[in-house]
């Protein structure tokens, strides 16, 4: 059961990721990224992190990606044009990626003592999570809220400045 679900949604993940790369229209890339994220949410569920699954859907798929699609619509970004690009990206980048993947894969494959995930595994309930989050890690949590506030202000300021540039009158 677990195996089947894993295979199905891991397949979705990879397919979405690859699709993100091959699609030339940003909106398609965005949608495929949404697919990746939602299937990742399912994988989280399989790993017993149900709250994170919900948060993944709400925050990533529901908020961040909506923002992306908004921006795509707003800027009316069409198909990306074929610029020659940079040689460094190809000459240096791809070997690097391959090396990265190779090293990571070697380590993961040679790592002993990794357990397995099954349907009958326990589920981390939201209570446990929040217990840790609101007692041990209260300060980081609050700091994050401040960070988000700052982010809101910053983005508003950036957008405003753009307005100001366009119409110097105001």
């Amino acid at each position, binding site marked *: 059961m677990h195996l089947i679900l894993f295979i199905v949604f891991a397949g979705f993940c990879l397919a979405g990721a690859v699709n993100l790369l091959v699609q030339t229209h940003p909106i398609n890339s965005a949608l495929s990224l949404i697919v990746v994220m939602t299937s990742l949410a399912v994988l989280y569920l399989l790993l017993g992190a149900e709250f994170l699954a919900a948060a993944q859907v709400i925050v990533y798929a529901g908020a961040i990606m909506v923002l992306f699609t908004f921006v795509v619509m707003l800027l009316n970004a069409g198909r990306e044009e074929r610029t020659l*690009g940079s040689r*460094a*990206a190809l000459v240096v*980048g791809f*070997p690097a990626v391959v090396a990265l993947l190779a090293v990571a894969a070697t380590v993961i494959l040679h790592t*002993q003592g990794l357990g397995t995930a099954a349907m009958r595994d326990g589920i981390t309930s939201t209570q446990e999570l929040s217990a840790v989050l609101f007692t041990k890690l209260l300060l980081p949590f609050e700091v994050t809220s401040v960070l988000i506030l700052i982010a809101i202000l910053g983005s508003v300021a950036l957008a405003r400045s753009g307005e100001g540039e366009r119409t110097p009158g105001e």
Partner: protein
Amino acid sequence: MNGSLHLWLIPLLPFAGFLLNGILGRKLPKALVTAIALLMPLGSFAIVLSASRGFLGIGPPLASVPHIESLDYPWINAGLFHVDFSFVLDQLSLVMLLIITGVGLLIHIYSVGYMEHEDGSWRYFAYLNLFLFFMTVLVLAGNALLMFVGWEGVGLASYLLIGFWFQKTSAADAGKKAFVVNRIGDFGFLIGMFLLLANFGTLTFSDIAATLSANPAWTGGVLTATALCLFVGATGKSAQLPLYVWLPDAMEGPTPVSALIHAATMVTAGVYMIARTHFLFDRSPYALGVVAIIGAATALFAATIGLVQTDIKRVLAYSTVSQLGYMFLGCGVAAYSAAIFHLMTHSFFKALLFLAAGSVIHGMGGEQDMRKMGGLRERMPVTYWTMTAAVLAIAGFPFFSAFFSKDAILYAAFVSGGIGKVLWFVGLVTAALTSFYMFRLWYLTFWGELRSHEAHPHESPWSMTGPLAILAVLSVVGGWIGFGGNLGPFGRFLAPTLGVHNTEAGAAGLEWGMSALAVLAGAIGWYVAHRFYSQPSESATKLATSFAGPYNLLVHKYYVDEIYSFLFVKPVLALSRFFLEWVVDVAILGGLAWLLGGIAMLCGAILQRWQSGNLRSYAAWLALGAAALLLFVLLPWTLLLAGIGIHVGMVTHQ
């Protein structure tokens, strides 16, 4: 009182005043600035008075004399070398504190009137409070290093105050001159401290004294060297030969400053320092001799210059130098009490002289040339009478203050063996000269007719005349506390600190003879001055023309400034200019700039190909870096795993 006299408040109050006025003064209203500036010295004066009760027997007696208060944590603590913030209050420092805070307070009050037309008086008062802070630290210091802090600090304050009218080039230059000349003296002081440290391993005065008294056979040699180095410092600060040159120029500052710093307190720091370290000088007759000779020579030298000066303040400046010479003469013949006594009386009448002169200048609208004054005695009666008292005092008129103090010194010089007689004679001649130029000043200023037509002299406000009156009383009667054998009560008071000198316990008859001679000398000086200056006459100028050579020599102050500038200033200037232009500018800076520029351009030429601004190439390099890092972290493990399939450390720690 549980032992503590709150000595730390004495310096700290003026410092608080300095901070308040220095930081907020520009904003604060003038009245408030003045109030702060006056209250702080008043407070410390009150504390000094309350502290002095213990010494004078009234009020609760002290647990121990000298009374030591030190912060509970050390200041410097390096191996064997150990210095802490310790304030010592004994009879000597108490006398000094009374003079400093008392006279300082009077001069603060005086300044209110004198500086009221100045803008930026907040700056002035801030500096004045700063000076008080450092001076009290200097006096209270229990070790040489803390004293040195105060020593440098008063130098700074005097620099700031001399250059108070910094828009005047001469003032700024005078400040610089004072600072530089003092540096030379301070250098000597530093060397002296190093020698102390090397030989005694401590800078605390009491410890050094204890060490010395522990082994009485220890004399001469190193002690002489140390004493002489300290004395160099003293000559710098107290304007003795050969470093006196800064004091006359220091008269560029406001007159109250000249009164406080360059007459009453700061310039006497050298005398205080020698008295404080007298146990060292006692052990080296040679050093004492040098001190005595320098003192006497300075006295005579400065007096002769003072004869022909026409600027009222310069006359007083040279007279200050020569009076300081007296004090050093006293120290040189080991009559420290007498020196301190003269220091006290001198601070009274010299402060009075300066303040009176300041009031004259104030009344004359900034005119300082005596040749343009005259006939002021009706126009400024209070100034006239107080000035008269001061002149009589300094001239050694019987039973005025200097009569006692100066005679004590002369007597001590006479009875001290060796060249004592010579020194005494020099002192006597100096006394005559002193009374001559003082009466010359007096006549030129107050008698005859007003020789300037644009000036409209008027009496000064009470805030200036009040201190004058008080100081006048002091300088008239101030000498009586030193009346009697061994300087009477004063000597007895200081005896625990400075010791009794058998020379002072001499025959009364001889002492009276001395006094008579001194009075006679003063009388001669007054007579000559009367002949020349009581009414306008050509005799003085005739004399000058007939002795043109000596006269010019005196007018040009023995060309000392010129000689110094030729010997030291010009060569140093030339050398430093050369150094700046060629070594620093061309070689170091130029070479460095060339080198750095070259390196920067080289790196830029290499690196700019990287910084293409293309996001994706950046990402590529980033990825490469990440891969390299990962490899670096994991390579040994991966190799091992490839070879022998053992566990990976990071995961199997369970």
